């Protein structure tokens, strides 16, 4: 109470560290800091003692040594003589590949199931409810194993395609569905502009990007015209032309042919192979996460109050427009944040690739490299670092989005 009369004069007393709110926070933080340092020192000391007792050291030199093993799906150059670091990169790219693919298909599954679950068709709604509950309540590891097993056991092996009256045949003589993966025709350029294959495809991509901007400009022009005259010019054939004509010309010029897979020796050769483990993991992750996304979508649609729909109808909007202009924009605000955290889950769950033999980062760096070099601590730390970087970047994107989408209150 004395402080009220003459606060500045009071000299500092030790008891104020506990009793005075101005200083108490320093006490607590000081204690916390000491505890933290003590804990870190204790654990670090244990680590050092244990490692020196075992004669080990922490060193990342092994990353430069030849890996010595082969990987079945490599999107960047890699052979068994490449260093462990390169194997880790192969794994990282494979992780990202399956994560991106699974995110895309999971969204599709989720939106379809979520919307159908609200359908007024009783049977379909119930069926979707069964799907959602089945996948939400059974561990993803079990699903991955089951789907991988279904793939291996129920699909034919390449051997079934052999012989004159083979048990299986290729779809349109172009696609082969085997338990080792799906073989599809692959595009090949007979008259490439550049020596490097990748560069040619970059060119094609560039043309497509150009077409995208062209189509946008076209639509902008049409809108401007509509605003000016009230009549929207018919542009769909122009749009189609902008999209397809340049690419088709370019590809014809470069001599596009299709490399069709054919059974040679033990396997199908030629074309593009989408490996069995990739398909199993991709499908399992999408259908599992799809069930969760379905719930988010349903919740998002239900969160838009009925008054909004009714008001929109009262304005005379057609049902399609009610959905597009009124319900979806509001539902999206609710759907997107959990959706992105589902994407995060997919990325993290893709580490279960080891159950199906897909060469992701957990299987290369955290699997074979770890086994071969015995550098457990280093490998696990790098592995965690990778996932952390991915997660934090996705969260950062999500925060930016959330801030942009926040209801602007005035």
């Amino acid at each position: 109470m004395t402080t009220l009369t003459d606060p500045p004069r009071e000299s500092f007393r030790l008891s104020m560290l506990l009793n005075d709110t101005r200083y108490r926070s320093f006490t607590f933080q000081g204690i916390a800091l000491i505890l933290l340092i003590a804990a870190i020192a204790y654990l670090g000391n244990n680590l050092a003692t244990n490692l020196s007792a075992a004669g080990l050291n922490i060193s990342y030199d092994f990353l430069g040594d030849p890996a010595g093993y082969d990987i079945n799906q490599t999107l960047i150059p890699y052979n068994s003589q490449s260093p462990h670091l390169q194997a880790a990169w192969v794994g990282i790219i494979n992780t990202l590949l399956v994560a991106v693919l699974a995110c895309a298909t999971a969204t599709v599954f989720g939106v379809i199931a979520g919307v159908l679950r609200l359908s007024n068709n009783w049977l379909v709604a119930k069926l979707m409810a069964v799907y959602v509950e089945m996948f939400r309540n059974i561990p993803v590891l079990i699903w991955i194993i089951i789907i991988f097993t279904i793939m291996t056991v129920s699909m034919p092996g390449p051997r079934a395609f052999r012989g004159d009256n083979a048990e299986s045949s290729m779809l349109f003589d172009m696609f082969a569905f085997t338990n080792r993966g799906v073989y599809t025709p692959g595009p090949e350029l007979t008259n490439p502009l550049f020596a490097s294959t990748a560069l040619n495809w970059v060119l094609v991509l560039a043309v497509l990007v150009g077409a995208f901007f062209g189509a946008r400009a076209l639509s902008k022009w049409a809108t401007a015209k509509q605003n000016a005259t009230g009549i929207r010019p018919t542009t769909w054939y122009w749009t189609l032309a902008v999209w397809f004509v340049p690419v088709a010309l370019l590809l014809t010029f470069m001599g596009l042919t299709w490399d069709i897979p054919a059974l040679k020796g033990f396997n199908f050769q030629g074309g593009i192979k989408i490996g069995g483990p990739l398909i199993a993991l991709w499908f399992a992750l999408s259908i599992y996460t799809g069930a969760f996304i379905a719930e988010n979508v349903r919740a998002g649609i239900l969160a838009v109050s009925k008054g909004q729909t009714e008001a929109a109808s009262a304005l005379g909007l057609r049902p399609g427009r009610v959905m597009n202009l009124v319900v979806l924009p509001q539902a999206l605000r609710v759907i997107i944040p959990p959706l992105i955290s589902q994407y995060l889950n997919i990325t993290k769950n893709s580490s279960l690739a080891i159950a199906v033999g897909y060469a992701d980062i957990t299987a290369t760096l955290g699997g074979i490299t770890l086994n071969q070099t015995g550098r457990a601590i280093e490998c696990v730390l790098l592995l965690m670092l990778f996932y952390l970087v991915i997660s934090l970047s996705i969260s950062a994107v999500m925060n930016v989005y959330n801030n942009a989408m926040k209801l602007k209150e005035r």
Partner: protein
Amino acid sequence: MKKSLFLGALTVAGLAASAAAAATLDEVKARGKLNCGVTTGLVGFAAPDANGNWEGFDVGVCRAVAAAVLGDPTAVEFVPTTGKTRFTALASGEIDLLARNTTWTFSRDVDLKFTFVGVNYYDGQGFMVPKELGVSSATELDGATVCIQTGTTTELNLADYFRSNNISYEPVPIETNAEAQQQYLAGACDVYTTDASGLAATRATFEAPDEHVLLPEIVSKEPLGPLVRHGDNEWGDIVRWTLNALITAEELGVTSANIADMASAAGNNPEINRLLGTEGTLGEMLGVSADWAKNAIAAGGNYGELFEKNIGEATPIGLARGLNAQWTDGGLLYSPPFR
């Protein structure tokens, strides 16, 4: 366990720092149990039966060591380890001994700081293919899809072999033997490769074993043996000489059937006497009881008996002795003398 649960937090630093280099032998004796790392399940080498009892060739080694040190072959805690966890488990002291089909290689010995005490099975990596493929040699496997069980030296050997023969292949790494088998049988891969002993064991469980052949190529040397941590030489000696005792016992004709007779009184073969402790002080030198070797051999029989009981020709696995015969029979088993 019970103490570590809530007193673990109290086991303060001071208590712990001194215990850094406690001898493994003393620890095992104090604990009354040997912690032995084995596989999570490979029939014939180490697998739990329907009642949860571990059985197999590697398990036999664990039991022999437990019998030699503690006098009780059942005083073993089997710790299942995967290819990923086995070395950490050993290095961190979770297990005292690793007997898990582990190949003795330079880097494991030198870089990972382990001591391989000997070889209990000379193996090599082989290939199994379905007969209908008509393949008779591994060099015909160009373009094949190969199932590999991960976590072993197998991936490296395979890469080396195919690279040196300049043929291509597609690896499918699989975690467990059961799943690799499923892939192979479903035709998702043409070839299954792992240690030849493992292939034989796997083929034995097939519905129609005759439809699969093992190719003649053995592409690697796989000396499998038990290992311990670097630095505790006394403990290493105990495990090494227990293994040697099993091998020597077979060479000298000491079996679990006649060991009681032979050990009751000194016979006229001095080496048997020294081995069984009826003469000399070998046990004392090793720091264990005089009848250590007798206990070790009585636990599951000598090397030959262990082999025949778990993986020999009479079992479903049906491995021939081959390289694993005594040197007197043209094999590689050659124990240093007990003297």
